[in-house]
């Protein structure tokens, strides 16, 4: 029974990673840049919910809504101000700018909220689920996390395959120049991608802080890196890859924490990543790109 509960908690943690990884993978697929500030947008989402729910005393759903709006606006603004001027320049320059944005968000949060950890009240208020006469308890946050991850995946896949904007996103990720020739506004498409990724980060922030209820300006940084690893794991640029990578990462992390060593869990997660990349250099679902001479 304990194995089952570790496994379910792992899937739940993995679902959060998957939602964050989606933001990474979509932005990478379209703009070919690693958005290192993505993890900090999660933190901003967390603080937005904290302010609305704990400080103002409004209902949690309203809090999530406010967080989604704030993060979307923030994501689009960051893209417009910091990343768009560097379009077409070496990816390293954009990477450093993204790191600058990440420092900026952390320090603004530090100034407003201070460095002390805030107690986050869970946005999920449902009762826990008890199975097998109480031998197995699954918390409601876990169920909500897994369900929302599946819902987000389904919605996103149909959005990309069915709508015009989604098709435009695919086209831009395939070939930037050809997409422009077809009359697709590349800048607008990238802005929309950032908006979606940031909105997902806000949702991930709500779920992450409900599971681990301590909120500091650095809360988003490690999950951000882990989600990035998950995105690479599944094949960066691939949406089902983000789901598989995220869940595998979460399960491996939780099981190694439970059965091997809690201190070594990060090392184990990273070792698995290295082994996967050595066998499949572009991740589990990544496409192999042949080099042309």
């Amino acid at each position, binding site marked *: 029974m304990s194995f089952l509960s570790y496994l379910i908690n792992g899937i739940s943690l993995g679902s959060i990673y998957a939602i964050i990884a989606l933001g990474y993978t979509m932005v990478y697929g379209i703009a070919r840049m690693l958005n290192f500030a993505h993890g900090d947008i999660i933190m901003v989402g967390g603080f937005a919910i904290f302010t609305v729910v704990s400080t103002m005393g409004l209902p949690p759903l309203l809090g999530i809504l406010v967080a989604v709006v704030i993060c979307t606006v923030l994501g689009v603004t960051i893209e417009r101000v910091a990343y768009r001027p560097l379009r077409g*320049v070496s990816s390293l320059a954009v990477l450093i700018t993204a790191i600058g*944005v990440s420092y900026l968000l952390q320090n603004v949060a530090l100034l407003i909220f201070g460095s002390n950890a805030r107690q986050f009240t869970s946005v999920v208020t449902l009762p826990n689920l008890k199975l097998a006469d109480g031998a197995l308890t699954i918390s409601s946050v876990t169920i909500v996390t897994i369900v929302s991850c599946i819902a987000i995946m389904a919605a996103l896949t149909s959005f990309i395959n069915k709508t015009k904007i989604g098709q435009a996103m695919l086209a831009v990720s395939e070939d930037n120049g050809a997409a422009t020739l077809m009359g697709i506004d590349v800048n607008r498409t990238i802005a929309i991608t950032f908006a979606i990724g940031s909105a997902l980060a806000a949702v991930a922030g709500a779920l992450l802080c409900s599971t681990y209820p301590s909120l500091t300006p650095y809360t988003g940084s490690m999950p951000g890196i882990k989600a990035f690893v998950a995105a690479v794991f599944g094949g960066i640029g691939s949406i089902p890859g983000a789901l598989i990578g995220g869940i595998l990462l979460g399960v491996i992390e939780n099981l190694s924490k439970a059965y091997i060593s809690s201190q070594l869990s*990060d090392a184990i997660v990273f070792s698995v990543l290295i082994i996967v990349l050595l066998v499949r250099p572009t991740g589990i679902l990544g496409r192999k790109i042949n080099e042309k001479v």
Partner: protein
Amino acid sequence: MNKNKVRMQNGITYGIVAGCWILVQIMDKTGHMTSLLRGILVPLCMYSILAISLNLTVGILGELSLGHAGFMCVGAFSGAFFTKCMENVLPNLQLRFFLAILIGAVVAGICGILIGIPVLRLKGDYLAIVTLAFGEIIKNLINVMYIGLDKGGFHFSIKDTMSLGMDETGVVIIKGAQGITGTPKASTFLIATVLLLITLFIVLNLIHSRTGRAIMSIRDNRIAAESIGINITKYKLMAFSISAALAGVAGVLYAHNLSTLAATPKNFGYNMSIMILVFVVLGGLGNIRGSMIAAVVLTLLPELLRGLNDYRMLIYAVVLIVMMLFNSSPKAIEMRSVLLERFRKKKDTAAKEAS
């Protein structure tokens, strides 16, 4: 570039370091030195060494590495481990420190080769994430490592001090997450400057040698380099391991500048690797002097802004973003060239009027 020009450029770089050292000595003698500034002298050299060594991987070899702090960590721990072990055998601190630097460099270099063999098969962002992963693994492993020394030799454990099973003469040297305590403070500004000069000497000579040109040809076009018979793996590994060894030297310097050495996310985590990368990119890829200057400026900046307390890291972040935009964005480059053109025209007309 012809040989004389190269020699002059290198001379300027060495001259800057020597000049800074003399400047500090003058400031020290005339009493213009604050304790804050004195405390930051060794870190300044250390960050410069780190930036120069990472530039070898990122700028010269052209592979993005996010795990440089991991090699620094290996160097720091192996060096400090040596000085602690040999405390009774070799009482001379200077000699012990000198040997520790060599050991740190060698161990970090070997780590560089071991990690480089699998990692350098990957490309681009995948390589970056795997180096990041290795850096985190190294930090994690050191955090659970316990090593003790007694009459029977070394004892090793990954659980706790008790499970080392030592007799009563045993001394715990590496204490898991607490790391190594009581390392002698052997790093001085003179030694740090000399190490910086040696690093510069190694890297600058490497770049302008046949080997260096081979490494740069891999960066510019791997396939073309391969087709003219350059052994890609050999040169890639060479650059990567030299870079790692130099980071190890910086690590030994770091370990002997503080009395306790523990692997925390702050000093050996990916944040540190990223900070070194920021120095390299801001200083200019492949520009050794640039990464040195960027390391010094960006280390001094938060210290000089200390009076602003909470706002200093905020200002640092804004400066970083603005500098990147100003340096790299096509619009800013265009604006700069237009301004430069206008300035030149003014000069020309002024010169004509004068004549």
